[in-house]
């Protein structure tokens, strides 16, 4: 069935469909069953599946993360939800010392570890430094974790289903602003983990994007098109395992690349991408890969500094112009950060 739905509904549908398909799937975490339902992404689940399978927890992320692992070891398929990834940091001991290692440390005696940790990332409304992190690079740094970042309703739906079905631990990172995005979702369309997605075709430059940066990239590509530059957008989607082949194929063709990772660039996933692209496309590259990411500071609260902290379509256009050796086009009539103006928070 095809429907036009919001990203948040795509998530709740994926959960409902997997819970229907498999009684061992359950969803838990702070605020999961309250009336706000994690910005709507757990809507309808409590009514449909009851409090044994959809439940709240105390503020005890460390223990609850360990409990997710224990439940998975005992044959269940937990989906643990964090309304902000910053709070998952309290569960890092379990995630990094146990969940990511356990199968390997036991010499494979532990077969399956089907755990999904869903976490909301990104900018909201003056979210400041403790409610705005992304952390995909940090999670992907650890062997034994899969890391997924959907950027469309279809991917939110299909990748969440694939993550729940995966027998390995998956960190599933959802940008807060994507929740409002509407798109067609076909529930028969499966997307396996581990594949990048070429979201727009172009021959002049490749924009390799994660999460919200895909939205900025589409706007940048529209602007660049006005001056005859065709940008190709590759949505990484699966941070780990990484589909380097799709990315390299695009860059080999365009010869120019901007890596736009929704995170700090320094020591981040952007650095990994840039290294792999340089290595894999050394002959074809006409210029060094550019990285676009957060300013290397904690996230400030006040809007004018926030707008400097976060890259936008404008940042991408300027970077593309540098790479292509073009003059700066006139962007004075363009509106950037429009989503920021629409978003009224409070979270």
């Amino acid at each position, binding site marked *: 069935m095809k429907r036009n739905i919001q990203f948040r509904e795509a998530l709740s549908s994926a959960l409902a469909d997997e819970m229907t398909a498999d009684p061992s799937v359950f969803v838990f975490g702070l605020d999961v069953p309250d009336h*706000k339902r994690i910005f709507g992404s757990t809507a309808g689940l409590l009514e449909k599946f009851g409090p044994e399978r959809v439940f*709240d927890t*105390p*503020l*005890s992320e460390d223990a609850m993360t360990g409990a997710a692992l224990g439940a998975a070891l005992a044959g269940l398929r937990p989906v643990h939800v964090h309304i902000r990834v910053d709070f998952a940091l309290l569960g890092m001991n379990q995630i990094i010392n146990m969940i990511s290692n356990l199968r390997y440390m036991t010499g494979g005696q532990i077969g399956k570890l089907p755990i999904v940790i869903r976490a909301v990332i990104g900018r909201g409304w003056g979210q*400041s430094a403790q409610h705005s992190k992304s952390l995909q690079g940090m999670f992907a740094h650890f062997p034994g974790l899969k890391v997924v970042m959907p950027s469309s309703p279809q991917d939110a739906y299909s990748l969440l289903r694939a993550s729940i079905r995966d027998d390995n631990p998956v960190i599933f990172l959802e940008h807060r602003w994507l929740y409002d995005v509407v798109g067609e979702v076909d529930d028969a369309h499966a997307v396996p983990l581990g594949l990048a997605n070429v979201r727009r075709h172009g021959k002049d430059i490749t924009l390799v994007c994660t999460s919200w940066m895909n939205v900025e990239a589409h706007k940048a590509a529209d602007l660049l098109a006005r001056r005859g530059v065709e940008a190709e957008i590759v949505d990484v989607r699966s941070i780990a395992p990484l589909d380097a082949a799709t990315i390299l194929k695009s860059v080999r063709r365009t010869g120019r690349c901007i890596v736009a990772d929704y995170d700090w660039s320094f020591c981040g996933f952007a650095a990994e991408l840039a290294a792999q692209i340089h290595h894999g496309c050394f002959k074809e590259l006409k210029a060094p890969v550019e990285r676009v990411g957060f300013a290397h*500071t904690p996230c400030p609260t006040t809007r004018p*500094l926030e707008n400097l902290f976060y890259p936008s379509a404008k940042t991408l256009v300027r970077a593309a112009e540098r790479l292509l050796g073009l003059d700066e086009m006139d962007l004075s009539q363009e509106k950037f950060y429009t989503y920021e103006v629409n978003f009224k928070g409070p979270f």
Partner: protein
Amino acid sequence: MDKAEALGLYQKLYLVRRCEEKIREEYFKDEMKTPVHLGIGGEAISVGVVQALPPAALTFGTYRNHALYLAKTDDVEGFFGELYGRASGRCKGKAGSMHLCYPERGLVATSAVVGTTIPVALGAAMASRYRGRNEVVAAFFGDGATEEGTFWESLNYASLRGLRLLLICEDNELAIHTHVNDRQGHEGLLSAVSGFRCHAERADGSDLPAVLEAARGILRKMEKDPRPGFLHLSYYRFLEHVGPLEDFKFAYRKKPEEKELQRRDPVHRFEQTLAALGARAEEIANVRSKVDERVLKEVAAAQKAPFPEPSELMTDVFV
């Protein structure tokens, strides 16, 4: 408490209330671009405990920190400057509502990750002991924070070392929308902490004189017998968890009767105390109008203040 002291306290209590009511009035103009966790109903806790603490005592708090900030620092200008994200904000607009602090005036840090400042306050108490002083350090936190391991770890260590760490639990029975009965598996916090070598007291946090008495009482015990203190203060959260509105329409909790709401309103309660102490209506009105004027002035100033310079983005990362 005599009338003069009471009027002084009322000025602080009413200042907190007025500032938060002003935030409610202004919030939908979309100029304060920061999530606000209002403490309407809980003002007496910060006002009373700060009053009882030695003036130089270091304090730590949470994202629901407006009352603590104002009670401890009396900095209305920096407060509104911060909420409006202006250069005049105490933290230059980098903090917003959730991380307000003023270390020079003893509010060292607040954090929006629940439980986070409890062990930090522990460390400050440890440092004071290290220097041979063992002064009181106070950590404010909500009932939800006691579910985090760090609360118990900190209490354990402070009890072990006999540190003068004052733990103030501001208990509104809610963590966002989840009632304490759906979160805690013990028979009440006071009994749960009773096995530790700490002092423990509870009081009605909506009643400023009761808060003051309980805080002074536990501080006296901590003075005589150096142990951590656990102060359990209950209050009613009048508004939604975050944001300027009421949230009774969502039905996860019932709106109390008007009489009960008045009983849980620390400002209303304390006005009755004032009357009983012989304060005249015009004396009370006088305090209010001065506070009203001050708040109006500072809000107007904040609205006109410049934003931080772009170069501020890169400052303050390192010393």
